């Protein structure tokens, strides 16, 4: 069942790539139907077997793949991967709705996004390091082609920068994985077995070096300061749906790697490195927020708020490693906050990037100064943008509040210094309010004159994302029930 969910988009991608005579409309609808089927499948799986309370994986599948190097095809879901798998199908469905009006090579674009969807789903389902790495690398290749093929501005250059930078990260990751493999006895790449064995426990320098390599790889992908410089150009030049997937799903691969690989397999080294991770988190939060404040380009601004928002996740997972003098309860709360923040950021930022794409679609620019008073000519756009901005700055009632509240409750309890990062929330609030003011209020000027309001496809791609964010903000219980047991187990593993 899980393999079907993972590989169905790949099958569709192959069909779409090969069927050269397929009319454009048929290609768009094929993608839409596929993403709807994926949403239904995942929803059905969630309803059938929702909360993996006991330890162990749900929908687990394991098959021989490369026995000679201790790697197998091993997939399964637990409370950490479930929410991200669901997030992936939702974000891709939103993108497929959004591209119902795509004009530029829609068949190839649909094929590429279906391929990307498989890599994202496969990564979150993977329980084997090599399988994880395969999907990790393929997602980079897929996103490279999205940016270079459908981007605008200096897309070629941004795409190459993105590829080189994240590829460097992925090779650091691979070195770390090989280190783990060789340290385990018997040699294995299986995450479950590695978690059980924690091979470099008490390994001193070796453990620190392996974790360093893995952290480097994940930090590039997340991205955290100082490895974030690929992100703003990639986002600025990517197409709207490319940005939505990149920020909504691909960035989560980095932070997911922290909770899935780095923390449970290398608990000892993680505790030693926890303060470094916390510091990087704080710097990312503040630096991301301040740089975002200085942007005049809407898309660059949203890109930098991503650095800020992912900083909260890094902060929380770092704080969860500060074991001495902290309650397990607090570390668990921080971890729950981290996972919820991944989901929340995915939903809200995907919506914001889709909305930013509308600006470019209408006026060919993201420059805030060239718009003004959009509320009058485009009331629906203004309403959705305002909602998304408030959700992103962490207004109570939206998922972002639930996430950031838990992140800070947990983190400040374990490491009081993290309270500094609260300033980040303040700055984010200021910059979003300023963006709303510049973009939406006042008299319509510049490109706002004659600005067409949201079309049906645009409305129905953005609105569901924000609705989900609202739903999680108001009724967080169903999500928390899934995440909490897994977070508790992870807090246990790190503390052992």
């Amino acid at each position, binding site marked *: 069942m899980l393999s079907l969910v993972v590989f169905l988009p790949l099958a569709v991608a192959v069909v779409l790539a090969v069927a*050269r005579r397929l009319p454009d409309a048929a290609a768009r609808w094929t993608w839409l139907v596929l993403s709807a089927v994926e949403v239904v499948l995942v929803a059905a799986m969630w309803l059938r077997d929702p909360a993996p309370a006991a330890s162990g994986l749900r929908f687990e599948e394991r098959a*021989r*793949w*490369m*026995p*000679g*190097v201790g*790697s197998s095809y091993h997939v399964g879901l637990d409370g950490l991967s479930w929410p991200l798998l669901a997030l992936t199908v939702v974000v891709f469905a939103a993108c497929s709705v959004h591209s119902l009006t795509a004009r530029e090579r829609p068949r190839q674009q649909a094929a590429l996004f279906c391929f990307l969807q498989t890599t994202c789903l496969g990564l979150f389902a993977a329980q084997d390091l*090599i399988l994880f*790495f*395969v999907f990790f*690398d*393929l997602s980079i*290749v897929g996103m490279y*082609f999205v940016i*270079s*093929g459908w981007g605008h501005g200096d897309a*070629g250059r941004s795409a*190459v920068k993105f*590829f*080189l930078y994240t*590829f*460097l990260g992925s*090779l*650091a990751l*691979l*070195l770390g994985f*090989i*280190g783990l*493999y*060789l340290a385990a006895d018997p040699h294995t790449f299986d995450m479950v077995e590695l978690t059980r064995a924690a091979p470099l426990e008490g390994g001193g320098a070796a453990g620190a070096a392996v974790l360093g390599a893995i952290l480097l790889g994940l930090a590039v992908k997340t991205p955290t300061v100082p490895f974030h410089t690929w992100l703003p150009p990639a986002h600025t030049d990517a197409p709207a749906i490319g940005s939505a997937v990149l920020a909504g799903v691909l960035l989560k691969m980095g932070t997911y790697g922290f909770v899935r690989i780095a923390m449970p397999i290398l608990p000892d080294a993680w505790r030693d490195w926890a303060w470094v991770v916390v510091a990087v988190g704080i710097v990312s939060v503040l630096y991301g927020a301040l740089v975002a404040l200085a942007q005049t380009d809407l898309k660059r601004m949203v890109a930098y708020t991503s650095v800020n928002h992912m900083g909260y996740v890094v902060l929380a997972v770092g704080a969860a490693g500060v074991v001495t003098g902290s309650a397990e309860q607090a570390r668990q709360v921080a971890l729950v906050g981290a996972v919820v923040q991944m989901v929340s950021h995915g939903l809200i930022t995907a919506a914001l990037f889709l909305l930013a794409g509308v600006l470019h679609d209408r006026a060919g620019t993201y420059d805030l100064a060239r718009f003004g008073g959009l509320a009058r000519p485009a009331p629906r756009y203004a309403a959705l943008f305002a909602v998304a901005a408030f959700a992103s700055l962490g207004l109570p009632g939206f998922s972002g509040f639930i996430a950031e509240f838990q992140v800070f409750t947990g983190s400040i309890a374990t490491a009081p210094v993290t309270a500094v990062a609260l300033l980040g929330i303040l700055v984010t609030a200021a910059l979003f309010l300023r963006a709303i003011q510049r973009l939406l209020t006042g008299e319509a000027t510049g490109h706002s004159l004659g600005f067409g309001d949201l079309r049906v496809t645009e409305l129905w791609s953005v609105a569901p994302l924000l609705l989900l964010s609202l739903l999680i903000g108001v009724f967080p219980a169903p999500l928390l029930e899934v995440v909490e047991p897994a977070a508790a187990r992870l807090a246990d593993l790190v503390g052992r």
Partner: protein
Amino acid sequence: MDASMQKQPLELLPEVCLLAGALATLLSGSFLPRQRQWVARLVAVAALLGAVVTAGLDLAGTAHTVYAQTYAVDVATGAVRVVVAAATLLVVGLGVDELAGSHRESETYALLLLSSLGAVVMAGASDLLVLAVAYLLASVPLYALIGASRTGLAAEAAVKAYLLGALANILLLGGVALLHAVAGSTSYAGLSTGLAGAPVAVVAVGLVGVLAGLLFKAGGAPLHFWVPDAAQGADPVAAAFLTTVPKAGALVAAYRLLDALPGDGAGGSGVDWPLLVAVLAALSATLGNLAAFRQEDPLRLLGWSTVSQVGYLLLPVAVAGRSEVALPSLLLYLAGYAVTNLGAFAVVAALPHRRTLASYRGLARERPALAAALTVCLLSLVGTPPTAVFAGKLTTFTAAWDAGTVWLVVVAALNTVASLFYYLRWLVPAYRTGPAGGHPDADQDQDQDGGPGDRRPRPYAVAAACAAATAVLLLGVGAGVVDALVDGPLAR
């Protein structure tokens, strides 16, 4: 076994196939008119298929030596037999369009078969004298192949290869003589006992000499200077062959020789050859990459890229005998590399009018299948999963780390990132849309050489490229199966 020479010609059926095929191709080609040379091609293909099948059937056998311990029949020989024969088959396939009906068709096939026989025997040689003979058999046909296209560039490349090859040959023979002098034997079994306690300086000089010869064949630094010239100057057929097949023979031969040395690594023989090979590996990978950065001709770029690939291939050789995954990783990487490299050359052979990276602009729109094949092969050369070379890189990195050479793994990983840059320089234009207007391909080609030549890609080369790309993906996904097949001990 007793010393009754163990003459078992049936054990050498794949080699016999290649030799008989070479002679039959040459003879049939000599007596056939120009327009019926396809018969010679069929003979060559049949011989290669025979070699692949007999070698494949023999792969599961136990490791042993034949002919008085001069030739090893084990998993390494078996894998090289399959790889070399299959690779040569692919070379013949990608060259049909170019060679069919040409005045040198049957001779080319005969030379290809002879050189591939030499590569196989190099890999199987378990005696320094057999190695020296195999070296000559693999080299001499190559010089002819490089020069066969009779252009200025080809002549220069042939002379360069010949001079460097002759030097390497002298070094090899000198090394053999020295090792024989101190060990009292030329068989590897004799070396592993005879060299223990021998004067370290003499062993070192002898070993360096033999390794120099093998490095020339593999095209690794510092004896790589002929490779880029030959890749650019020779026909795509010859270029594809000489950057693939001799490497397989030479690298396995180097592994076998180093594995036979006494002691564990730097121990008994007193020569720190693991460090030497590791430095050579780092040198090859780095030099090849740096030189490839600024190339504009795809063939020359591929030539430098093969130099850097030798660097990665030397990783398991540097840890020969010190990690149990070293030998399977070398064989896996060789198989993956061969099919990937040939796929990239097949794409170039299919598009003879595109001689610069910039001229690949618009390929994805006009020839999506070729663009896809090129993408798969280049990404595989980078080492992106799930392709063949990724499986090879993963296992070779693991082997090198397992033996404690972590610095080399880090150097190789950094080189991998650097290599992405120049492979992208080729891929990026392929996915750019052509210049505005009706038929970009026609306009562009007319700008280049004006003549009304055939603009369509060559069908056999296209088929070879697509077959290779498919094989790259299959080998990558099925790496586990291949890995299990090539896992076994060496015979000595």
